[in-house]
């Protein structure tokens, strides 16, 4: 529960009734947002978009520097279709790409548990190297630390990224009622690939983790806002966009793409498809008149890409299904299979 403390000319949000940090504070849902808001760093300089996927600062000539960071604690570290290294690089490239930025370089920090397999580390480094080479985005600085055995779960990776974007191309344009919302591919594949080890099932689904920079570049001129629905899925992402833009969103349930196997796992585990993390997908907002064109371009990259909704008045996310409308709230807690 939050309460506001008035400290002169600035309000500080204090988290009360909590003695310690819980897993929910890192899950991408409401608790995490509230926690971050409570930090309330007072000195931001002239940086903008500090609550967005990447922060921006003017550097003259109508250009902005774009800066982002992310830490990766995924478990298991090797999963169907990828590993923590590939994920770390894709994730940070995507945080820059969804701002409209051209990535210039990445930092890479490892914190490794004593006793971690050298071979596993080489595999991870190899993944990172491959992706960096393929995307022509260099790893330019970094750090390596080792902690005593038992003090850390295998490995944590942090990547930060720097990019550049012109004022005109920055994806923070104002939304209008009627703007279309598109999703670049099927939901939930990364989550389902990851959960297969935890819940011991076999599936052909592999992670969707990859940089989305090529797709974004292909439809760049049509994009007003873009975001990648990672932790908390499209439920978290779209609620955040509603809040920031003071608009509502209407989703068309039957048009939201997800592979059949993903839907099967969702039923089997009793989890919410719209709260599942994707690591190689993005949502974008375009003017209605461009929607079909953007959809057809995105379909050349992934046939499941689809128009999934539109911007409305209001301030919440509503889903339209066969029987009527219902709200899609901001997720809270963490993914929890349910019982009867």
């Amino acid at each position, binding site marked *: 529960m939050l309460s506001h403390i008035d400290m002169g000319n600035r309000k500080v949000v204090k988290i009360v009734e909590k003695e310690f940090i819980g897993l929910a504070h890192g899950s991408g849902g409401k608790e995490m947002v509230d926690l971050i808001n409570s930090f309330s760093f007072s000195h931001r300089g002239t940086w903008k978009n500090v609550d967005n996927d990447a922060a921006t600062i003017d550097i003259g000539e109508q250009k902005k520097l774009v800066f982002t960071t992310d830490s990766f604690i995924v478990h298991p570290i090797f999963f169907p279709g990828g590993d923590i290294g590939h994920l770390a690089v894709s994730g940070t490239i995507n945080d820059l790409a969804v701002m409209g930025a051209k990535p210039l370089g990445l930092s890479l920090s490892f914190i490794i548990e004593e006793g971690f397999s050298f071979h596993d580390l080489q595999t991870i480094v190899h993944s990172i190297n491959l992706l960096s080479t393929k995307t022509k985005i260099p790893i330019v600085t970094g750090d390596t630390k080792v902690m005593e055995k038992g003090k850390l779960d295998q490995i944590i990776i942090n990547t930060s990224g720097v990019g550049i974007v012109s004022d005109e191309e920055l994806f923070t344009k104002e939304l209008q009622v009627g703007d279309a919302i598109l999703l670049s591919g099927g939901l939930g594949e990364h989550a389902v690939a990851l959960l297969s080890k935890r819940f011991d099932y076999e599936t052909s689904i592999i992670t969707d983790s990859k940089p989305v920079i090529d797709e974004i570049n292909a439809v760049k001129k049509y994009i007003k806002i873009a975001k990648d629905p990672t932790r908390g899925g499209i439920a978290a992402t779209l609620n955040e966009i509603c809040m920031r833009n003071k608009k509502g969103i209407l989703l068309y349930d039957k048009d939201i793409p997800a592979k059949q196997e993903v839907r099967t796992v969702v039923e089997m585990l009793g989890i919410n498809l719209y709260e599942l993390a994707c690591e190689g997908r993005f949502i974008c907002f375009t003017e209605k008149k461009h929607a079909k064109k953007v959809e057809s371009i995105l379909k050349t990259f992934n046939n499941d890409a689809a128009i999934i909704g539109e911007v409305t008045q209001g301030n919440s996310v509503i889903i339209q299904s*066969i*029987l009527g409308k219902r709200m899609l709230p901001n997720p809270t807690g963490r993914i929890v299979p*349910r019982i009867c």
Partner: protein
Amino acid sequence: MDEEHILKDHIHAIQKIAEDIGKNITIMEICGGHTNIILKYGIRDILPENIHLISGPGCPVCVSSQYDIDCMIELANQHIPIATYGDMLRVPGSKYSLDDIRAKHGNVFEIYSTTEVLDLQKKYPNIVFFGIGFETTAPMTTYLIEHDVMVYSVHKLVPPAMNILLQGLVNIDGFINPGHVSTIIGTHAYKDITVPQVITGFTAERILRGIRILVELIRNNENTVVNGYPEAVTEQGNKKAQTLLAKHFSIVDSEWRGLGFLPKSGLEVKKDTLNAKIKYAHLLEKVPLPKKTKCRCGDILKGLIKPEECPLYRKVCTPDNPQGACMVSEEGSCAISYRYGK
């Protein structure tokens, strides 16, 4: 007929039958899975005005007593390893939740299936399983008892609760019976309940179809149980599961949150050496009875009020600051209402 037509056909038929009935009728559903689908698709909103569909105590987390929850939290706080289903972790006790104890001590384990508890038992031989759930889940707990895992049981039985609800403040004209509880206990277990009932599956179409059948039975004064989920439910139910339940559990009076002690409505572990309430009685006797709060989960579970009518709902009680189990459990009426924008 495509799905939309079938649904409209059901709705149309329900409207006609409701007109025939004329007066107000109340039907109750008592299954967390059904509650979720009803609210997810806004089924309540499309029913005729004189058909009141209310949610009863179908969420096992919601009906677990505050005292039992406090007891399990106390065991965990005393560093005893605890395993339970994910739903239970965030339920607030009088002071902490199991999630908080996990963050503090690390000895609380979330499982998806009781088979995982056997793996945990190898590392933590004194692990205690917090057994929540109705007749669907209680057989999975017998599996643990067969493997010498200690259990704190708050398992409950649905038909006794249905009978008590019929004697309550709200006139219930018919029930939508729980789907998978019925798989275990069979349709014959409901024969002494003297109102029309229907058992349905878990899609919007199945539930609407079930409501259509139920209002028809009510109109015709037919006090019978219609099995609308025959692929999963038989008259006798799962005999092997029933045998295991009888082998390992005694039927006892049980405290249901908000309903009080209901006679012969709970399951208690027969074997004393595997009953955590007996083994750890010396720790549990220190657990005080919970204080009364303004939380109205009890009235919500009885179907007396809707979540929106609780004074705490949305104002104080939200998913990230839940005051009671109905908000914490994902199947709780308040959590589901909140999630779907009521």
